[in-house]
């Protein structure tokens, strides 16, 4: 029995084909069959009326923490995959900083299988760069990729040893995968709790200077240049970091980079009152940095919008600031935040948003999707640009509620999330 779905009458926006118009999209057996004018529904097709809605290639978040194994009180692969679907994402890349970390093919394969079992957004595992995330020697990269890893990273911890990063960038080239790094020179940010600046001085919190991130970004760029490897810089938050990436791209260095929604819209002033839901790493920085990240996203220096979805149990965040863990959930607010506070404010246009949230992530991480071209996977995000809604963390599909955006009034959100031709979430 075939499974056929017709998405009827929506505004179909697919930057991968420079396509933007009122069109129909026909999905069959998990693949995209055709996109066109007035496609008549086959007899057995389910028709979804997309009038007034935006139909785009499925959104992909290359940076999420699903916490399983080891942190199931914060999130599981299943709840994380559902949270992604509820946020309009059809696929996510799960970071390997679990407990134990994903540093061998068995654990990578297990995450892949659990992701499939969840039956929501697709879950692509990533594997560690180093054994036990200890930053000392390479993990079995080839075997992890055979088992389904789409990138390697020690995210949460930077690779402090330049020699190891060089090896990783060299070695990964056999497999054509990105080496993703959390750029931070820890010797410049020991015990850091927030951005170093007047706010940290006033609040008596230990700061992380921009330079701790800048130095590491520049080092990684130099090593990518040396090796020809693909460096992927995660959650870039500093003005000189963006600038260094821009310059490296101009020199032809193989670099891709992310901007997180929170670094696009919030400054370190959100920490006022010791609000632990504004505590993350890298920290929220100054208005000047936010402007630079926005400019970097607009001019393509930063390729992706990635949420760094980092669930934590409320007991963990309900603590004095220094004792609370880093990170916020982001999957279910990203679309609304980006539409309301980035697109509507004119930083990027809608096609660029879809490019940064779908086409580019698919391309740079070699993932299926990112296009509505016939023959591709039937991963489609249907968004309602006019929906006005208020963030209510208590309704999240995620297990966790740690967001600085609770109560924000937003315009635009997901309407249907379709993975492999199947509706995995609808409003």
């Amino acid at each position: 029995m075939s499974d056929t779905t017709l998405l009827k009458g929506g505004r179909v926006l697919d930057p991968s084909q420079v396509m933007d118009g009122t069109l129909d999209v026909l999905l069959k057996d998990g693949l995209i069959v055709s996109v066109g004018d007035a496609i008549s529904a086959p007899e057995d097709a389910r028709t979804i009326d997309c009038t007034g809605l935006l139909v785009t290639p499925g959104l992909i978040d290359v940076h999420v923490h699903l916490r399983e194994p080891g942190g199931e009180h914060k999130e599981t692969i299943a709840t994380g995959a559902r949270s992604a679907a509820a946020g309009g994402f059809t696929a996510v890349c799960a970071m390997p900083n679990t407990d134990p970390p994903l540093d061998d093919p068995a654990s990578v394969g297990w995450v892949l299988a659990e992701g499939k079992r969840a039956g929501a957004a697709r879950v692509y595992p990533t594997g560690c760069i180093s054994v036990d995330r200890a930053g000392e020697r390479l993990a079995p990269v080839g075997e992890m990729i055979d088992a389904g890893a789409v990138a390697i990273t020690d995210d949460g911890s930077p690779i402090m040893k330049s020699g190891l990063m060089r090896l990783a960038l060299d070695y990964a080239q056999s497999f054509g995968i990105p080496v993703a790094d959390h750029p931070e020179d820890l010797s410049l940010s020991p015990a850091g709790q927030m951005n170093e600046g007047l706010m940290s001085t006033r609040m008596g919190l230990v700061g992380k200077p921009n330079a701790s991130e800048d130095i590491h970004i520049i080092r990684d760029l130099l090593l990518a240049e040396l090796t020809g490897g693909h460096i992927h810089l995660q959650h870039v938050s500093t003005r000189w970091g963006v600038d260094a990436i821009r310059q490296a791209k101009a020199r032809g260095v193989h670099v891709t980079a992310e901007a997180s929604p929170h670094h696009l819209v919030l400054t370190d002033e959100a920490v006022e009152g010791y609000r632990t839901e504004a505590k993350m790493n890298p920290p929220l920085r100054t208005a000047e940095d936010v402007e630079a990240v926005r400019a970097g996203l607009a001019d393509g220096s930063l390729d992706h919008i990635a949420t760094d979805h980092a669930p934590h149990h409320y007991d963990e965040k309900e603590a004095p600031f220094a004792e609370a863990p880093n990170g916020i959930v982001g999957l279910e607010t990203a679309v609304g935040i980006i539409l309301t506070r980035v697109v509507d404010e004119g930083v990027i246009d809608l096609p660029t948003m879809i490019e940064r949230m779908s086409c580019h992530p698919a391309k740079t991480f070699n993932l299926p999707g990112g296009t509505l071209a016939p023959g591709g996977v039937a991963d489609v995000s249907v968004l309602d640009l006019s929906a006005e809604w208020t963030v209510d963390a208590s309704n999240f599909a995620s297990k966790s509620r740690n967001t600085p955006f609770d109560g924000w009034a937003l315009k635009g959100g997901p309407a249907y999330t379709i993975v492999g031709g199947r509706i995995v979430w609808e409003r």
Partner: protein
Amino acid sequence: MNPSVSPLGKDLVGLESLSREQILSILDTAEPFKEISERRIKKVPVLRGKTIVNLFFEASTRTRVSFEFAEKRLSADTVNISSSGSSVVKGETLVDTARNLEAMRIDMVVMRHGASGAARFLGERIPSNVINAGDGQHEHPTQGLLDLLTIRDHKGPIDGLKVCIVGDVLHSRVARSNIHGLMKLGAEVAVCGPPTLLPYEIAGLGVKVFTRVEEAIEWADVLNILRLQLERMQGGYVPSLREYNRIWGVTSARLKVAPREILILHPGPMNRGVEIDSDVADGPHSVILNQVTNGVAVRMAVLYLLAGGQPESAEAAKQGGDS
């Protein structure tokens, strides 16, 4: 007393959030309370029936004892909890510890905690009054207040005075409370120390910055000399105690060339021969022990005001007329 209206709000977490008038009212309220500690029978019924918990997650002698004397001399019932030997070492969270105390129907918590913001955190979660006895590197408001009171005792009104805080400003909650309190009362404030121990963008708080102690001495009417915590050596912030004393130590030789008499404060405990030489600490311009005496009076004033006492009724309350 009307317990519902405190002129300071519910909690005292720092001086940054207080107005000039509130700070002055605490200092003025402390004046009549000074005398209680000079009596033969050092007890008045101002806080009779109030239950106060002194919750100390970090070691403290001076501050804890000073609070306890203040509470007892005002007739409050007090309990001391320190982190060692409490349920905290068994893994209980701060919220749970506080809620359990609250469940025993207490009135006030005096807390010292290693995390900046901890006092505010607690105050937002329990109905009892919370007094910050030092939170991380944030504030130590009663220390700031007793410093202000001591300066005022010896120099008159704070307005226009030049006060320099010398030493490890980076890690100091005393420094931040002093900066906010002094500036609100109209002082000119400076900090001085090795740049490794001065916080980033500290000038943004409106203070002058000196990196040589000679310049501070040339400029100041008052020096508040901070303790150099010995663990800072391990952190590599300064190369050695000897070098620290040599370059940043407040010595009588350096004070001798000062253009005016400089009042010397130190929050204690002192490292004699490191940040301050003994002949300065014990010298004629040192008011270090006056600070300690004033500490009890200031803490009485804070307890009294948070319990709903009015500044103008303090004298009467002390006589037992308003309890």
